[in-house]
């Protein structure tokens, strides 16, 4: 068994991993940048070591420093979370060389699935259905233009090394192509340190359906069913749910088997996610393997009852998978809403700043995975995810109602967040009807900012503001008028418990 785990991440996912370790009585080491001294993961871990300045390249992406901290603290394993070094095969190879356990796939499989161009080739050979696209890795603008013509517009620009929507652009006509590729390359370079991008056919009105898999070091592979993650802004998911309304048991079984096949032919181990696009005619295409624990992993945990982070740690420790495919069942329905420090009225522009007050949602079937607290200053340097609200209930409709309630009870004051926007998504008739294609937000939510002008509780807010101003004034007056004596002084002679 692993003895001590270093968590090479920050925010809610670092807290999630630390909590799994605490449940398993495995000591933890947090690493942090100078901007994160007061972050929650630093407070939660058993040890915390500062690894550098705020820019990620100087701290959370600094491989030498992180390896040195692991050695110095006696950690024998590293959990990379998601983002940062999670899908960096150089990092996982370095851990292997240094005798540290990387809690994730082996570096060879990581290199294969991480290189989207190479993995497309492998999948084509194995007859896994893929989206038509460009196979070359580095290209001149002329080649991009030719490839786009032969695939046919609209095309999608994607970062070869990436995920999470970074570097991604939809291009509808040849005149947007050059600008889009330049921007995609810059974003890819800054997010992943690798500027290579490729093109593929853009499937219109698709759904994004992915399968969670677990694979141990002995070739045993199970899938834990699907997640539908169609609701996205900037090609980055903000709402996920399971089961998907779009697939039936027959298709579910077929896609699950393909997902396991993808994992097997990639020589992949540990937790991973096989992403598919599902078109209007229920035809599915392999997109990529996300070689990490995903942001949306909790919904799978709630419907299957399996703790994926603990499974990751057990698999990395060399344990055999005890889960059997036929024993894994989906029970009920789970939805996740991601809470970002962003302004939905201003094109989801990130909004750093101080959280002046916060109250967490709670109740039966409500889970809150969180990296913030009242008084926390959200730094500008990192992805603006703050937390996730996950609800579970017997049916989709119950889980949706529970989510609307939880979001309404979730108070974050002082910075802008996606809470109100997500609440409107949950309440939208098209969401209620299960019509969740990846263009859901453009199609249904574009007038959200205007709708907000007709807010329901404007009068009550004014009343509250007026009353609070008045209360403050009268408090001040009261203090000046009489320094009220304590009841202990005015009550006269007293004693406790005497007769």
């Amino acid at each position, binding site marked *: 068994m692993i003895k001590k785990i270093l968590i090479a991440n920050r925010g809610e996912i670092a807290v999630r991993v630390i909590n799994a370790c605490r449940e398993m009585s495995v000591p933890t080491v947090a690493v942090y940048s100078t901007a994160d001294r007061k972050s929650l993961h630093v407070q939660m871990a058993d040890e915390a070591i500062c690894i550098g300045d705020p820019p990620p390249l100087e701290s959370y992406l600094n491989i030498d420093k992180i390896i040195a901290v692991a050695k110095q603290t006696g950690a024998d394993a590293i959990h990379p979370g998601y983002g940062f070094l999670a899908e960096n095969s150089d990092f996982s190879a370095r851990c292997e060389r240094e005798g540290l356990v990387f809690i994730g796939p082996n570096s060879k499989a990581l290199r294969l699935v991480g290189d989207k161009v190479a993995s497309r080739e492998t999948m084509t050979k194995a007859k896994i259905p893929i989206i038509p696209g460009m196979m070359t890795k580095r290209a001149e603008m002329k080649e991009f233009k030719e490839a786009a013509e032969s695939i046919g517009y609209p095309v999608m620009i994607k970062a070869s090394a990436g995920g999470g929507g970074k570097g991604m652009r939809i291009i509808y006509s040849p005149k947007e192509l050059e600008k889009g590729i330049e921007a995609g390359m810059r974003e890819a370079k800054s997010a992943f340190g690798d500027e290579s991008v490729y093109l593929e056919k853009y499937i219109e009105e698709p759904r994004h359906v992915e399968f969670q898999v677990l694979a141990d070091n002995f070739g045993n592979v199970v899938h834990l069913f699907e997640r539908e993650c169609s609701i996205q802004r900037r090609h980055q998911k903000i709402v996920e749910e399971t089961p998907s309304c779009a697939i039936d048991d027959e298709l579910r079984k077929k896609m699950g088997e393909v997902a396991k096949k993808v994992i097997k032919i990639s020589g992949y181990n540990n937790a991973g996610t096989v992403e598919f696009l599902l078109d209007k005619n229920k035809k599915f295409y392999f997109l990529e393997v996300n070689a990490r624990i995903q942001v949306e992993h909790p919904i799978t945990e709630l419907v299957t009852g399996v703790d994926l982070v603990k499974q990751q740690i057990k698999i990395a420790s060399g344990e055999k998978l005890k889960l059997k495919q036929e024993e894994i069942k989906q029970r009920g329905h789970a939805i996740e809403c991601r809470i970002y420090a962003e302004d939905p009225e201003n094109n989801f522009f990130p909004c750093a700043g101080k959280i002046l007050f916060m109250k967490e949602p709670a109740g039966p079937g409500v889970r809150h995975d969180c990296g913030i607290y009242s008084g926390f200053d959200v730094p500008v340097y990192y992805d603006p995810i703050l937390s996730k609200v996950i609800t579970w209930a017997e049916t989709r409709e119950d889980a949706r109602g529970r989510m609307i309630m939880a979001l309404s009870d979730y108070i974050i004051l*002082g910075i802008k967040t996606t809470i109100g926007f997500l609440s409107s998504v949950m309440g939208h008739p098209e969401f209620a009807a299960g019509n969740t294609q990846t263009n859901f937000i453009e199609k249904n939510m574009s007038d959200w900012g205007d709708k907000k002008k007709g807010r329901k509780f404007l*009068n009550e807010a004014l009343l509250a*503001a007026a009353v609070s101003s008045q209360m403050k004034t009268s408090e001040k007056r009261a203090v000046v008028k009489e320094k009220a004596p304590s009841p202990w002084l005015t009550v006269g002679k007293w004693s406790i418990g005497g007769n």
Partner: protein
Amino acid sequence: MDLQFNIDQETHRIEVDFRDGKYLVRLEDGQYEVDSQPISENCLSLLVNEKAYTVFIVEEEGKKYISIQGEQFCVEEAKAETGARSIAESATLKGTPTIAAPMPGKIVKILVGEEDKVEKGQGLVIVEAMKMENEIRSPSAGIVEKINFKEGDLVDAAEPIIELKPEEKE
């Protein structure tokens, strides 16, 4: 007591009286009887004509941040007549709208040059913040008068990146 509050650039006038343990509040559309009990430092229980509301409220730099039934409001007490104008407002008055990032970030690309004519909604500059690129668009048609930064520079929120001269009215 007379109060003026701004929400989303709209001013609301309010009168408040305190009588028999309750607040009588007159808004533009009528009078309300409010029973208010503080629950904690940041929480009020309001009964407005016997309807129950739990309100979360926090004050910072003269602004009240209020959450009520899942809706959020930023309420500013309006200072009568005088009062400092914001940078953007005074710039607008001068006739030169300034283009600024809503939060600190890095300028990755400037899409226009000085003296360029721009359309309303045209992309002017790409700023990277929190790992995402964001295009800042022109709020109006005009001519780029001055560019205060170069690509690769770091900017603070509200720092004018580009100054625009509005199009001459013909």
